[in-house]
């Protein structure tokens, strides 16, 4: 188990390394004008711009910068932001926003798990019933219609009809979180319901369900003793990834409701050529991504005795 964990972690590290390097090099291909604000672009001459870039260490060749970056990272120095907040350590820049994104993401996650999974179960239990059709219509609507449209609808409803705050505020976290959390949860509810329903319906056609019926088990008993847990296994694999992605913040929602979270930071830091922030963000996202996959596998192995991650060793006769 330990050996496997170490091996997976090393593999993940490699993936993260490759991703960060690619993004790093791509960043250096970007025009450096993004490093300047519009005010600066109007007034600065080319020489002045060059001087500023040189002072920021952005004039060196990409590989020199890459070497410097990794050397610093290995020293544990993740660098400072340049344009998001000049001189502020990247960890703090990200940390501030991560907290907000995570809080909101967790709320949304809890809501969507509490609503989405029972919804999927109910749909599967009463397959082709009214509730199933309603639920399916909901999932179709959410999955098919572009998020921008559905968020706009929620925005209009929430702001115009319910008078909820249109923007996130640190003073009224509760009320101002309602709309963004609803938007976040809305999508994942549909996701969970859809997959839960699908996996359950899949399980219900399996042979062992027939055997359970032949035994004389009640539909309810079949549902709760057999189908539910088995349907949960494929869900389990994706759960950590969705969890990590949710706490990683949603760009669209956070932009829409001025939530100072991770999402806008990502595009802002790229837009502003804040290379250090981008790199560390990418490192963070990539780590969360590979971590999610790894945790998913672990979780699945915990639920499903058939899966032995170590390849051998689980053999007990």
């Amino acid at each position, binding site marked *: 188990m330990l050996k496997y964990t170490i091996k997976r972690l090393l593999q993940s590290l490699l993936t993260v390394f490759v991703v960060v390097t690619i993004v790093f090099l791509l960043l250096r291909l970007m025009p450096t004008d993004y490093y300047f604000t519009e005010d600066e672009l109007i007034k600065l001459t080319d020489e002045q711009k060059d001087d500023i870039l040189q002072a920021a260490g952005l004039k060196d060749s990409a590989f020199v910068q890459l070497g410097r970056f990794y050397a610093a990272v290995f020293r544990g120095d993740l660098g400072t932001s340049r344009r998001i907040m000049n001189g502020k350590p990247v960890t703090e820049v990200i940390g501030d926003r991560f907290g907000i994104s995570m809080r909101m993401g967790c709320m949304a996650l809890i809501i969507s798990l509490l609503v989405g999974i029972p919804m999927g179960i109910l749909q599967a239990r009463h397959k082709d019933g009214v509730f199933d059709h309603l639920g399916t219509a909901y999932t*179709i609507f959410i999955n098919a219609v572009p998020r921008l449209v559905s968020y706009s609808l929620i925005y209009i409803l929430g702001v115009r009809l319910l008078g909820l705050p249109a923007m996130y505020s640190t003073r009224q976290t509760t009320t101002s979180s309602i709309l963004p959390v609803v938007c976040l949860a809305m999508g994942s509810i549909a996701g969970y319901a859809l997959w839960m329903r699908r996996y359950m319906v899949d399980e219900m056609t399996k042979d062992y369900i027939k055997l359970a019926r032949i035994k004389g088990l009640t539909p309810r008993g079949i549902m709760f003793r057999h189908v539910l847990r088995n349907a949960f296994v494929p869900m389990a694999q994706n759960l950590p990834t969705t969890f990590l992605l949710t706490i990683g913040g949603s760009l669209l929602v956070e932009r829409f409701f001025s939530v100072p979270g991770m999402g806008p930071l990502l595009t802002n830091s790229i837009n502003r050529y804040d290379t250090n922030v981008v790199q560390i963000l990418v490192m963070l996202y990539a780590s969360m*991504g590979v971590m999610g996959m790894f945790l998913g596998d672990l979780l699945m192995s915990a639920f499903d005795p058939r899966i032995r991650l170590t390849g051998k060793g689980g053999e007990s006769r």
Partner: protein
Amino acid sequence: MTDSIQTMFDEMPDQGGRIYSTDALEQMTGDSEENLFSFAEYHPEEAERTGYSDYSYWKSVWRIFLKKKFAVAMVILFLAVFIFSFVALAIGKYQYDNLVPDNRQMFISPNREYWFGTDNIGRDYWCQVWYATQTSIKLAAIVALGECVVGVVLGCLWGYVRKLDRFFTEIYNILYSVPTIIYMTLIALMIGRSFWIMCITLILFHWIYMAKNVRNLVFMYRDREYNLASRCLGTRLGTILSRNILPYLISVIILRLALSIPSTIGYETTLSYLGLGLDVNTPSLGILLRNSRAYFLDYPYLLIFPAAIVSIVTVAFYLAGNAFSDAADPRNHV
């Protein structure tokens, strides 16, 4: 014991529980007893011909698909919208290419002159919406096709050539583990925004999902016996992929094609909203939606029309895709 057997025997379902008399038989068949109890001619070829099934995969797919009334209705609705987008441009009072900004005409709600009202600089919204509809559909179709072509070709290689597995898996990890928006932003800032750049970047980042899908299927079919047979017969890799495996992937490809259209349109609107979408000179529904974001609380019609059309298109393809995947599943061919 004999009793019960006897009862059973009497009640055996011999068309009414009696042994036929010769008369009855002759009456029933219009043939003589002699003839009836003579050997019939045996046709081995007839035997060979009996009982072959008239089952056809595609016929069944089609039949089940047509049964999904709602999906079919949505597809028809989509076609209607698509065709109408041309008609609409033709019958509209204004031509997209000759739109003139006019500050006396701005923000006019839909009326007889301006069927969808006017936008913030007083241009007819009707022709903009329909023009954008065409752009969006064109974009989605090109991206979907591109994704499929690239995804299928590389997915086949990924699935069939074991040595490439590690390589493609790593690519998948690289693309999957970070939000695509990072790459999209980088590219948009680096080489700009245009219809074709958008197409290519979307294909660039989305083929992998198609490829992964195809790869799993190829994996499944690769070691089927008929492929072993082909290998045994010395069939080349390309032929195996194109003749033996690809035909089995068609239903999946069509499904992905159909589902990739709503997702592309959704992606396009998101990117447009973030300012990473199409060039502003090429209005798409995403761009109109983004623009309307600034006005929709005052002038909801600027949101409603493009939003409705976007929803029709995406829901239609989503439903059609899912209906098709149901129909394509041989388990449902009952």
